[in-house]
Structures are given as C-alpha cells and as structure tokens.
C-alpha cells in the first residue's frame, strides 16, 4: 500500500509548477541571453525542472509493511524530523554543517512517502513515480540492501541523487556502487573488522561458528566478511551456515541444524523481524544457554523486542546508540529532539536518515545549486561534517561515509537505568582503518551526466 496522503503537493501547486515550467521554457527560447544563460547546461535528471519553484521535492521510500516495517517506520521518523528542521532553520542543522541555513538554498523541502515493502520492484516503481511525476531532486530510503542496490541503478540511469539509509551489504558501495548514490551507514566489511577483535578478546581463539544468514546480498556479504575476519584473526571456523529467505517466521528447522552442528557461537546476521524471531526461537530451542550469541549488524529495536534478558552480554555492531550523547554533543541534541516528538530514544535507522538529509543539504549548499554533477562533486570533496558519531566525511572513490562503528554489549535487565537503556557502548572504533581499499570490491562509479 502506497501512502500518497503524505505527498505534500497539491493539485494547484502542480498546475502552477506546470504553467511556470511552460512559461520558463518559452522565455528561455525567446530570450536566450536572459537569466537562463547563467545556466545553459544540458538538463540532467530532474534538473532544472525540479528546482524552478520555491520548493524542491524529495522522494522517500521505506518498508512500512512486512519483515522490515518497524525499521522502515523508524527511518521515516528520522527523515521527517530532518526535513522539519531544514524547513524551520533549526540550529541543530547549522551545528552539523555551518553551510546549512533555512531550507535548502532557500527553498522549502517537500516530500512524499511510499511503502517499498522491502521489495526492489516496488521500490523502483515508487521512486520512478517520484522522479517522473514529482520531479524529485533527490530520492532516499532503504532497509534492504537488495532495494538499495536496485535504486542505485535507477538513480544512475535517471541521474537523480539517491541516498540509501539502512544498507549493510558490501555491494552498495562495492560492486554495485554508482556515481549518484552516497551511503551513510556502516556495512559488512566495517562491521566485521570492528567486532572481530572484540569477539576474539572475549571468547578466545579457534571457536566454531554457526551463521544464521538471510538469503540476499546483505546476508551473504556480512557472512563472508565475518568469516574472513574471524578466520584470519582468530582461527575461527564455520561449522554451519543456515541460509533462510527474507521473511521467514519459523526458524525451527534451521535452529535444530544449529543445535546439532557442534557450534559454540551463533552469529545472527538476520535483520528486522527475522532477527527478532530467530533470536527468540533460538532461546526457545535452548540454544542460547549452550552457545554464545553475537550480532555483527544490529537491528533497530532488537533488544526492545526480544527483551534484555536475552540480549544481556551479547556483543553487537551498530551504527549509532543513543548513549553516545555522553561523547558527542550533536547526538545529545538529536536525541532530545527525537525524544520530544516520539517519547523514546532514536535507534540507528532514524539517525542515519536524519544525517543523510543533513549531509545532502550541506552538499547542495556548498555546490551553490542543485545541478546534480555539482552536488556530487561537493560530496566528493570529502569535507568534514560534525555528525552524531563525531567527525565524518565521504570517500570520493566509492561514495562511502568514513565513520566509526559502534560496538555495544547488552546490559543485564537490572542494570538498565531507563526503558531504552539496553546497551553499554564498549568501543567506538575509528572507521577509516576498518574499510577495504575503495576498489577492492570492484566499485566503478560511472559518469556524472
């Protein structure tokens, strides 16, 4: 179900824009040396059509139904908060980047929200509509890397900037990277390199791993990166890799296989509801009493849904955790703003969404216009930004944000200071050294126009 009720473009504005466009075209043909001469470049994507009015349109597409619905809704909350802050000229935006003022280049940001159902096809359709009908100047959103990779391709062919949100596959800025896409969050390789030393330190060398892997690009690349890192650094071996389709609800057969595999560590790569159900059922099948659980790529709300008693002592890699506010003042302000609106502390999907919007506004402001190649080049300058996890910048060669990975450990139920206090931050691992060489996963960005 697509929620068009949130498409904030009235019939009137559409008509007005249409008339404006027609007029503008007429003007430019009649008066070749008028104001338009300042921008006599070929149109690229939705430029200049999408920026003629006093507002620009952003297409948001995230799963609101299915396995990843909870994470999708969280993401949308982050986007809406960021857009609200941009349009009102909120000081938090200015603190993230001094270039950001009110709106984006003075234009109001309008948006539409669609449900991707975490399906690439559905997401491609929704974004295509945002581009064709709403002349979206930027499109964003993902919880599944399968969607992120598909929209990467759409973005490159339609020449519209795309910002994936949650996407853990190496491929998103690896073999499927594109010039028109920029990823904020951590991913398989950085997750594996960050959590591996912690796991080896706490569990020792030469352990036997059972993987629970979702069957798509995200699952396979996280499994590969984890297996390589743990094998190389600690001599850990894989005794079974249980691959389940996205949206599995009964993990009993997989878990019985794990129970009989002789593993002593379960590395659960499942995400969203899959992560919640597989973890709960692993407990029901008595696995968590015999084996240690580790979560390289943590799902927002996992601890809230499975309970602190299951997550206590579990090491997890994550993008953001709200107690980072003790180290980063920007995180504190972001938490406060989010909490005031929603009554709970933000999880990492909301944070990633917020930061993506902020960094996009920063790039556009620095580019001085919406012309996509200029905006991309502004991103590629690798300017440092004050994020909720400290100073970050984009790597020009693969459009991946260089940012820390946060390693957390589940708290015992008794040690929780409030209802959202599920984890201790064990380590904030510097992002740069965790990353592969930009071309190691076969990234070729493609053209600007």
């Amino acid at each position, binding site marked *: *179900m697509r929620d068009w009720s949130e498409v904030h473009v009235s019939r009137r504005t559409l008509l007005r824009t249409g008339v404006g466009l027609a007029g503008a075209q007429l003007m430019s043909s009649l008066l070749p040396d008028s104001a338009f001469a300042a921008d006599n470049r070929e149109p690229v994507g939705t430029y200049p059509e999408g920026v003629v009015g006093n507002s620009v349109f952003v297409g948001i597409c995230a799963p*609101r*139904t*299915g396995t990843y*619905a*909870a994470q999708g809704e969280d993401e949308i909350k982050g986007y809406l908060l960021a857009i609200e802050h941009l349009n009102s000229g909120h000081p938090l935006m200015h603190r993230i980047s001094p270039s950001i003022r009110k709106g984006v280049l003075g234009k109001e940001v309008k948006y539409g929200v669609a449900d991707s159902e975490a399906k690439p096809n559905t997401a491609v359709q929704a974004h295509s509509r945002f581009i064709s009908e709403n002349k979206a100047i930027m499109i964003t959103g993902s919880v599944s890397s399968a969607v992120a990779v598909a929209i990467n391709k759409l973005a490159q062919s339609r020449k519209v900037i795309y910002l994936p949100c949650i996407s853990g596959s190496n491929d998103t800025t690896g073999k499927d990277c594109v010039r028109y896409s920029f990823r904020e969050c951590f991913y398989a390789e950085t997750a594996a390199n960050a959590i591996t030393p912690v796991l080896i330190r706490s569990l020792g060398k030469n352990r036997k791993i059972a993987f629970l892997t979702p*069957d798509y690009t995200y699952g396979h690349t996280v499994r590969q990166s984890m297996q390589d890192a743990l094998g190389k650094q600690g001599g850990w071996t894989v*005794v*079974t890799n*249980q*691959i*389940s*389709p996205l949206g599995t*609800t*009964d993990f*009993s*057969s*997989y878990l*019985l*296989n794990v*129970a*009989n*595999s*002789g593993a002593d560590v379960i590395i659960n790569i499942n995400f969203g*509801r899959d992560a*919640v*159900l597989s973890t709960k*059922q692993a407990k*029901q*099948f*008595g*696995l968590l009493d015999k084996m240690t659980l580790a979560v390289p790529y943590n799902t927002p709300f996992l601890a809230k849904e499975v309970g602190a008693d299951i997550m206590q002592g579990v090491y997890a890699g994550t993008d953001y955790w709200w107690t980072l506010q003790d180290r980063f003042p920007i995180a504190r302000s972001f938490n406060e703003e989010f909490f005031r609106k929603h009554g709970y502390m933000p999880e990492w999907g909301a944070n990633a969404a917020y930061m993506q919007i902020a960094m996009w506004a920063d790039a556009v402001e620095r580019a001085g216009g919406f012309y996509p190649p200029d905006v991309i080049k502004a991103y590629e300058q690798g300017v440092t930004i004050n994020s909720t996890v400290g100073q970050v910048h984009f790597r020009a060669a693969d459009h991946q944000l260089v940012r820390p990975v946060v390693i957390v450990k589940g708290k015992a139920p008794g040690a929780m200071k409030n209802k959202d206090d599920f984890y201790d931050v064990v380590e904030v691992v510097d992002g740069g050294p965790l990353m592969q060489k930009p071309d190691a996963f076969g990234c070729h960005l493609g053209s600007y126009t």
Partner: protein
Amino acid sequence: MFLFPFFVRKRNLLNWANFISQCINGLVLGALLALISSGLTIIYGTLGVMNLAHGALFMLGGYAGWLTYAHTQSFALAVLGGSLFTLLAGLVIERGLIRFFYQRPHEDQILVTFGLGIVLVELVRLAFGSLSQSIPAPSWATGITSFGFMLYPTYRLVVVGIVSLMLTLLWAVLYRTRLGMIVRAGIEDAVMVDMLGINVQRVFMAVFGIGAMAAGFAGIINTPVTPITPDIGSDILVEALVVVVIGGVGSFPGAVLGGLVAGEILSITAMFDPAYSQVMLFVVMTLVLFIRPYGLLGHRGRA
C-alpha cells in the same frame, strides 16, 4: 556422484540426533498444516468451493485471539475467542457472499474468495498496522523439554496434542453425527439430499463456518509459535493447498495424512539444506499427482 560434495559439506548435520530432531519437528509442522488443510478440504468437499480466503481466516483467528488475550490475559479465552470469531465470520461470509457463487463457474469462486482474502488482510492492516503481534504460550506450556539428544520448546509439543484433539473432534462431527452424515451425503449427491427434504443450504452454512473455525483455531494456536502479521495467511494458504492436493482434494483423512507428509518433507529436507524445503514439497506434490492423480486418499472428483 555430483551430490557427493554437497553431502561432504553438510556431513556434520547428517547424524541420527539431527534426523530424529527434524522428524519430531516435522510432526509439529505437519500437525498444524493438517488442521488448516482439513478446514479447506471440508469446505471444498461439501460446497465445491476452493476457498482461497482460507489463509485470511487463519490470520483472522490469530488476530481475534490476540485481541481477546489483550483484554483477558487468558490463553484459553483467546483460543475460544479466536475460534468463535472465525466461526461467526465464516457464517457471515457464506450467507453474505459465497452462497451466491455456488452455481457460478469455479473461476468466479476462486476469484471472489481470493479477493475476499485481500480485503480481509487489508482491513486488519488498517486496524492494527503491519507490525507483528504475539501472545505468550500458556504458563503451563512454556519452557524447554529435554529429550536427551535434543531440546525442544514445550509449547510446540503441546500444539501436537491440541491439534490431535481438535482433529478427533472434527472427525467425530463428520463421521459420527447426523450433520456429518448429511455432509458426506451432500458430497456424493447434493440434489438427492435436497430432494429428501433436508435443508442443504443450512448444512452448507454450517460446514463453511466449521471450516473457517478450523483455520481460525489453527491461527490462534500458532500465534505463540510465530507472531501474526496481516499477511501471515498467504504462505500458509499455499502450503495448505499443496497438502490438500497431496492428500486428495475433498478428503478429510487425506488432509491429515497430507499435512503430516508435508511437515516431514519440509523438516527432513531442511536437514540437508533448508533452501530446498519448499521446492521438495512441490516435487513430492508433482510425484503424487503422477502416481495417484486424485491424491493419496482422494477418489475421482465429485460431479
């Protein structure tokens, strides 16, 4: 020969402990499938309607039970609430919609029940959202049972008991009551039963209600095992259809046998590679259709 590397790679999972574990798990999966499919097959056998809204009724039972649980905190009342609600829903659907389609072609019946399923799913989504809901197992059935070679969630074992009880009850209704006799006679020759002065319409209504209730009952029993979402019924419907085809369309014992066979196929294949479980289910269905075109316990179709 080409299978050799496959087995070598998985050899650590091919042991007796795992085989027996998966067999028991197959029994649990199969019991639930048997119950869901029996409802589907009773309706088809009696009314001649392949009810593609059956998955949605399974889901409705889950939600009705979950709502009851939320208000009463009682598992028994949740089961009762879920069952009664789907019984009622079944009666309303039969009177309000299905009965107008008895004389229409099968394609129309399939389309209308399929459409009804979509409407029910979206209504529930509208009312309760897309996030999963669950209810805990009753306190006496929580915890883990140890078999020595394996640990198994107690509630899943209890499910087998509850389902067996329900299936016995359904069997008794079908084979030991006057209603059941009329139903079975109606399957053979509805016109003759009508001519004998029996109100077939009312029997049809009762059968649709009972079939719907079987789905709803399964839906609520399943909720502590896998949480419910509005679209939980779609996968179940496909599996139930396969079970009915394997067992013999319209045959009650066939649905039970088919359910157990399907459960074991899903589970034992998973021991080698879970990715092939669903595929294997369809492979077996195809084989059965080759060897026994009317299913394991089915016979040449109704007129």
